[in-house]
């Protein structure tokens, strides 16, 4: 780059020539690749767009399955679908809507708009977003495609064992492995988004000035970290039972089908709010704009969103009210389920209150918002009903619940989402959606939705159970079902109007003007149509609605009078700020287009797909390939040494280009990922203690196998490996590179010996995992821990290699910081595993 090495403080931003030069450099740096290389893009505006389109494509696929369901149930004794075809259809309808649309669309929309809301140029790990997207695409096609080969899962989206453990074919494996793979993408996105909100806010945007959408992203990201891992743990146990006959859920060998139900619903209930809160977050951006005033009760809505998120983890048993639990549990979980209505209600009332206090402008997004309110409040009220356990005894697993869940998900998720798409369409495309088509699609969808789902409440009360491929006539359900089926098609027609509006060729008159809705939040400062660089300059924020509060704001933005108005070194840059008060602490160089993320996702996808077919050798090869790709990606793309230590980012701020440790984004990403990983591990530990509670004697027969000796040796060795890694970080930081390298040799040796000792315990005591749930869960803990330690060894060796070739030095030490953090979690994991398998048999 022959760019002038000017420090921004000396640049005259008033000079149009200077600004044109800056804009040219920014354009060059942030340019979207052309031709086939377009697909190597990693920028949030491309990845976000692909993500949204893909999620909607899966949604329409699942919607067609829904229509097939309604055709089949339009008449009693209908022969349109066979029992097997219907069971695959409803399983895939629920699975795809939940895992391939409802959760990914949150991540998709957030990846798309979050940088704009934060005035940032991109999220901190663009390649991670792209990697997550490709995982999502591959996994989604794999799961959905199965139905065309008559191989789709047919155990219901909840996959209850023993039905799903006993089922032949590969349907259940496709579900387990395909979705585990997609969950990797979900967690990757959650990491990206949490770090984005915590570290990429613009200077001055204190936590309490963060746009409400940012708060919701933070809360939902956190919920994903604690909700998805128990399901991953469950999937792990489930697949071990299916593939290797480890009897976790087989009552004849000490297993218990209810363990899966607990793990599934510990995920499944928070998931409802993981789906619902992001859509409410969109309303929290839309409602103030059209009420022409700030949100009424900012703190109320933030606190109640946190409350909803927190309480949602204490409700899962209300999906299990009819499994024969004691009345005390029923009462507790009924009360907790009612309690969640309170913070949820507050969020609704904050919107109504904002509307009351404002002068409301009518618009398509507001129309969808009002429709969402009408539907969601009704769904919430039926939720209050089903939370009363005795009422649930009647309506559980009936069409009443089908109606309830569609009311909450359509009202709480789809309608706000469509409001958001209408609202944010200009930011993605620079165009407006049609008001006329918007009104048409709204009323068709609103009417169709109610015609379809309102009668189902009654159908359920008249005794119609869920998941039935046919029903006999004469039970009072015939007309109700026919009405529902008609409504489903009316809804589909409305959705097609929306799709047409999105894809139709846009005219000149559809071009968006700047800030078309006259909003006050920072994302509307963007030029229309938006530029590839995102924010022209990263603003300094002093209020929640800067466009309303500061009349000079847009002028300052256009003249580049904030931070990072230039790309003089030809690098993609954004600002990292401190977590609470958003002081600039780093100028982060983010990565650009890459093929390696696609290769890594493809390899990882292949390993999951091969495992589905039990092609173990290919699975191992693909897994090694994925690891190699990821290592190559990290080696070439992360922790690069900048050409200078510090950079002037404007407004008199001089910040470092490289930081490591708890201030850096990488450290946070590791911390967040490992929090999720630890949660999954605790899910497996939960399994151990769950078996202890359901068996009179556990371990069975008073056995103390695997004994205390080997686990003790393993614990000591693994803690030594941890200490070596930690020590390596400390001594490396003090400049004693040689000693650090020595420790990085000792660490892997101790860790490998630790794995051997860990396996030796159950191995030499002859625990056969296929015999009973006890040896199976012991082996599961050992396997989980051993695999994690093995990854830890790879990390230690990686740091050693980085040190040897000079990439890792006492100054540039982010690698060892993050690896040491990983090992902190490994120390805890190893400690718990060895104490549980080696110690618990002696105290129980």
């Amino acid at each position: 780059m022959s760019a002038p090495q000017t420090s921004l403080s000396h640049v005259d931003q008033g000079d149009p020539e200077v600004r044109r030069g800056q804009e040219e450099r920014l354009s060059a740096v942030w340019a979207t690749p052309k031709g086939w290389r377009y697909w190597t893009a990693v920028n949030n505006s491309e990845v976000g767009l692909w993500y949204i389109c893909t999620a909607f494509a899966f949604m329409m696929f699942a919607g067609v399955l829904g229509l097939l369901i309604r055709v089949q149930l339009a008449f009693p004794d209908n022969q349109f679908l066979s029992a097997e075809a219907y069971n695959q259809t409803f399983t895939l309808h629920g699975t795809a809507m939940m895992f391939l649309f409802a959760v990914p669309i949150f991540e998709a929309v957030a990846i798309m708009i979050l940088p704009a809301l934060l005035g940032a140029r991109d999220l901190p790990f663009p390649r991670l977003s792209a990697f997550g997207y490709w995982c999502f695409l591959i996994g989604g096609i794999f799961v959905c495609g199965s139905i065309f080969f008559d191989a789709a899962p047919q155990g219901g989206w909840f996959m209850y064992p023993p039905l799903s453990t006993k089922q032949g074919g590969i349907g259940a494996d496709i579900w387990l492995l395909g979705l585990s793979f997609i969950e990797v993408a979900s967690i990757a996105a959650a990491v990206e988004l949490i770090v984005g909100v915590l570290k990429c806010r613009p200077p001055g945007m204190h936590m309490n000035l963060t746009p409400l959408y940012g708060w919701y992203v933070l809360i939902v990201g956190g919920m994903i970290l604690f909700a998805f891992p128990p399901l991953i743990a469950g999937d792990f146990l489930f697949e071990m039972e299916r593939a290797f006959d480890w009897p976790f859920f087989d009552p004849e060998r000490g297993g218990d089908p209810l363990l899966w139900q607990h793990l599934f619903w510990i995920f499944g209930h928070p998931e409802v709010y993981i789906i619902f809160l992001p859509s409410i977050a969109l309303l929290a951006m839309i409602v103030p704009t059209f009420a022409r005033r700030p949100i009424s009760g900012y703190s109320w809505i933030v606190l109640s969103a946190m409350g909803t998120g927190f309480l949602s983890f204490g409700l899962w048993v209300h999906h299990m009210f009819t499994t024969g639990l004691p009345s005390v549990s029923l009462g507790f979980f009924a009360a907790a389920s009612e309690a969640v209505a309170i913070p949820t209600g507050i969020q609704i009332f904050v919107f109504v209150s904002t509307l009351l206090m404002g002068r409301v402008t009518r618009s398509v997004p507001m129309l969808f918002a009002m429709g969402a309110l009408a539907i969601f409040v009704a769904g919430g009220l039926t939720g209050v009903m089903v939370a009363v356990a005795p009422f649930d005894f009647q309506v559980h697993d009936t069409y009443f619940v089908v109606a309830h869940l569609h009311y909450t998900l359509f009202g709480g998720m789809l309608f706000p989402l469509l409001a958001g798409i209408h609202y944010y369409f200009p930011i993605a495309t620079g165009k407006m959606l049609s008001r006329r088509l918007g009104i048409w699609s709204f009323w068709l969808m609103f009417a169709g939705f109610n015609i379809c789902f309102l009668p189902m409440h009654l159908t359920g009360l008249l005794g119609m159970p869920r998941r039935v491929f046919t029903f006999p006539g004469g039970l009072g359900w015939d007309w109700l079902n026919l009405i529902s089926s008609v409504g489903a098609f009316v809804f589909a027609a409305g959705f097609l109007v929306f799709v047409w509006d999105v894809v139709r060729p846009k005219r000149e008159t559809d071009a968006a003007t700047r800030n078309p809705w006259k909003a006050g939040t920072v994302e509307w400062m963007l030029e229309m149509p938006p530029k590839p660089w995102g924010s022209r300059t990263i603003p300094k924020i002093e209020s929640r609605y800067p466009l309303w509060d500061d009349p000079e704001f847009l002028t300052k933005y256009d003249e580049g009078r904030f931070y990072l108005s230039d790309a003089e070194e030809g690098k993609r840059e954004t600002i990292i700020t401190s977590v609470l008060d958003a002081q600039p602490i780093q100028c982060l160089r983010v990565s650009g287009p890459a093929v390696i993320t696609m290769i890594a996702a493809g390899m990882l996808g292949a390993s999951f797909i091969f495992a589905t077919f039990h092609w173990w050798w290919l699975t191992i090869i693909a897994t090694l390939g994925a690891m190699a790709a990821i290592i190559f990606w990290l080696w070439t793309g992360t922790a690069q040494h900048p050409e200078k230590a510090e950079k002037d980012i404007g407004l008199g701020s001089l910040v470092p280009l490289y930081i490591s440790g708890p201030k850096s984004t990488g450290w946070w990403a590791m911390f967040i990922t490992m929090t999720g990983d630890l949660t999954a591990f605790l899910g497996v530990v939960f399994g151990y203690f769950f078996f202890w509670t359901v068996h009179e004697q556990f371990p069975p027969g008073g056995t103390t196998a695997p004994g205390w000796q080997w686990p003790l040796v393993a614990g000591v060795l693994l803690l030594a490996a941890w200490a070596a890694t930690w020590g390596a970080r400390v001594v490396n930081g003090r400049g004693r590179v040689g000693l650090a390298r020595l420790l990085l040799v000792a660490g892997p040796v101790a860790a490998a010996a630790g794995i051997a000792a860990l396996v030796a315990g159950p191995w030499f005591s002859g625990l056969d995992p296929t015999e009973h749930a006890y040896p199976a869960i012991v082996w599961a803990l050992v396997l989980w821990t051993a695999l994690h330690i093995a990854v830890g060894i790879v990390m230690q060796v990686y740091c050693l290699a980085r040190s040897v070739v000079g990439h890792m030095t006492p100054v540039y030490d982010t690698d060892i910081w993050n690896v040491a953090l990983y090992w902190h979690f490994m120390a805890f994991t190893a400690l718990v595993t060895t104490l549980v398998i080696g110690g618990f048999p002696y105290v129980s």
Partner: protein
Amino acid sequence: MTNRPAKVRRRPSGPARPSLVALPILLMIVAGCDGPQSALSGAGREATDVSRLFWVMLVGGAAVWIVVMGTAIFAVLQPPRGARVGNAFIIGGGVVFPVVVLAALLAYGLSMLPDWAQSGTRLKVHVTGEQWWWRVAYELPDGTLVRDANEIHLPAGEPVEFVLTADEVIHSFWIPAIGGKMDMIPGRTNRLVLTAEKPGTYRGVCAEYCGTSHALMAFSAIVHERDAFDAWLAGQAKPAVVADSVGARRGRDQFIAAGCGGCHMMRGVVELGDVGPDLTHVGSRRTLGSGILPNDRETLEAWVRNPDHLKPDVAMPGYAMLPDADIAAIATFLEGAK
């Protein structure tokens, strides 16, 4: 259904073209109807309680919905209100009102939670969920079991304890007209106490998805007056009746020769297998195929030939290779086994 008062019957055609506004009202009217499988018909104590709870919640819920939506629409149409109104609205509507209402609802609703600990000398009915039928046994006071399948008979006016489990996969036992459901889980035993009140014939179903033919797993629940129940149970305890005809006797021989007894228990005739439903009194049952088909000759023959056509993936193999005359004889025999 003869003993039940004929309440509002839903007109098959319904009012012409219900508009969206009229729909909820229509639904309320239709809700008056009670099908043999309706949770609102109140043929049992538990169902009656829950049905009352539902109407209370429906009226309350509708009122809340109207107030919230009315306020929201008012807010859109009217000029701005002061901040004091807005905050009072959040605190009053979002906190105070729901806390009070939900506490009251919980107190009312949870008072209906059954007291499982309470136990007595009441009738016990063991029901095991199978794919896709019901294994039933009545436990007499002396501990002996009277076996049956795919029908539940109950005395009116007294609590009955169901002892529920499942063989292979999870099912759920549900007679909507009498009371709530309870899951049947392999390896676990669940208890459910229901009190049927109005004599009549109702329909029960499996409520938990249990595989291919989950939709085809129902049963008849027949509530008798006490005397009639005792008489029925005494009859049920007896061995199978072989009708006094050449056809029936030939059918019995064919039944044995074809190996039906390898799976089906037929007390007094063949007592070998216990894999499929007990057929001792199959002729007296209301339905065939576990609550899904009429109990007549034609269906019996069709079932023996190709059960898979009537219930996909059913475990029983088809006997279409038998001569028609043999199948007809078996049907005659089973029909007569009252």
